[in-house]
């Protein structure tokens, strides 16, 4: 992981307006993940994804190429694997898999940094972290959504047919409220349906 740390370390990873950066928020997930497991028996599944709105043109293609190059190199140093998918909304999804949540957060932060550097920060939509309840594995998965625009997390528990389990969502919210920057206005908890994790 040294490679990724170097990548994050030698860049000035702060917004010009002095706000807390995306990676600060993302890294607080490390401890929140443990709380979710102890309190709600929700376990991180090793899968996460980030999505950004694709733009046509050479500059965006180059950014994607740099992301690919970076992730291919870091794959050699860690067990972080990835794949890319374009969805019907015109968003590019980078889907990560790693047993260690720290590796995934590092990966997502570093990719976010590349996108920042190439001035495509406004294209970033969200990062999703997948969780599942160990007791009933047949149940749907739960997610923590990190929204780049809000710079905050919120829970998302999809059921079938575009329905949400708002009970478990409110429970998750209660559990993580002290540990993560969370969006308290539930009317901003927009779902993300049919994504390929």
């Amino acid at each position, binding site marked *: 992981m040294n490679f990724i740390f170097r990548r994050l370390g030698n860049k000035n990873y702060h917004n010009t307006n002095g706000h807390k950066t995306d990676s600060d928020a993302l890294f607080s997930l490390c401890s929140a993940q443990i709380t979710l497991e102890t309190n709600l028996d929700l376990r991180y599944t090793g899968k996460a994804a980030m999505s950004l*709105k694709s733009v046509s043109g050479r500059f965006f293609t180059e950014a994607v190429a740099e992301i690919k190059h970076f992730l291919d190199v870091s794959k050699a140093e860690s067990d972080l694997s990835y794949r890319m998918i374009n969805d019907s909304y015109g968003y590019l999804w980078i889907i990560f898999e790693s047993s260690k949540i720290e590796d995934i957060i590092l990966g997502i932060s570093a990719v976010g940094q590349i996108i920042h550097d190439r001035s495509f920060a406004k294209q970033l939509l969200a990062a999703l972290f997948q969780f599942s309840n160990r007791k009933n594995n047949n149940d749907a998965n739960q997610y923590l*959504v990190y929204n780049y625009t809000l710079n905050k997390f919120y829970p998302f528990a999809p059921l079938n047919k575009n329905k*949400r389990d708002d009970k478990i969502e409110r429970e998750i919210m209660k559990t993580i409220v002290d540990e993560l920057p969370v969006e308290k206005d539930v*009317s901003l908890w*927009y*779902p993300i349906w049919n994504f390929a994790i």
Partner: protein
Amino acid sequence: MILSFAILGLLYIVFLSVLAYIGLGFLPITIIAFIMILAQWYFSDKIVLWSSGAKMVTTDQFPELHNLVDRIVARNSLPKTKIAIINTRMPNAFATGKGPKSSVVAVTTGLMDILNTEELEGVIAHELTHIRNRDVLVLTLASLFSTVAWYLMQFGFYGGLYSGGMGYGSNRNNNSAGAMIIVIAVALLTWVVSFLIIRAISRYREFAADRGSAQMTGKPVELANALMKISGNMKNIPTRDLRQEEGLNAFFIIPALSGSTIGNLFSTHPPVQKRVQKLMEMEASMG
């Protein structure tokens, strides 16, 4: 719906007043009033369904909704009602029909979006209680009695003035114009009083339907949650995809359509806070 009944009643009264003024006899007016009230009762469900744009749906179209209703009616040995859907984002539901067997429960797509299954069950059980209690008939009868009350009073009053006026041939026009104003004033007063009575009855029937729903589902808290959501007192978790919302650039726009409009719709109902409070008391008493 009750408001529209009241306005309908007002129209009848004005209409009948005009008929009486023209000089139509007691019997023709009685027959016309009777036909109008009968028609109102007979067509009430069709008028309501038509004016709300509700569409009947079959089991194939909405299997889950039908299943939900089937389960409630089976557990409470009620006849199965027809189910209608109104395609609007405004969350609401109503029941209509002349008798339990020919009744319709209508829900909006907005209601199905914001409520989870158990909350929707609570709302539907509330509407089914309205049907079981024959609330449409009760309210039609209430408005019927108010019309009859007005009618009797008006005839006595008008008859007296009219015969009194006959004595002075030259003043007849002045007198009957004055009589007309008094007649309309009395009619309006009757209408206002009956409107208030109908609203009071309606509020009572709402509490009764809440209680019935709590008994049917055994979970008053679910209906309480549903009421909070419908009235906009509980913020809704959205179901529209984030990517769509981003496309509309609607991210920081505060949704304008929440509390006030729905508050107006509920004006014939008791305050949501009071209903929720009663439901929570029921929940607590269930141990």
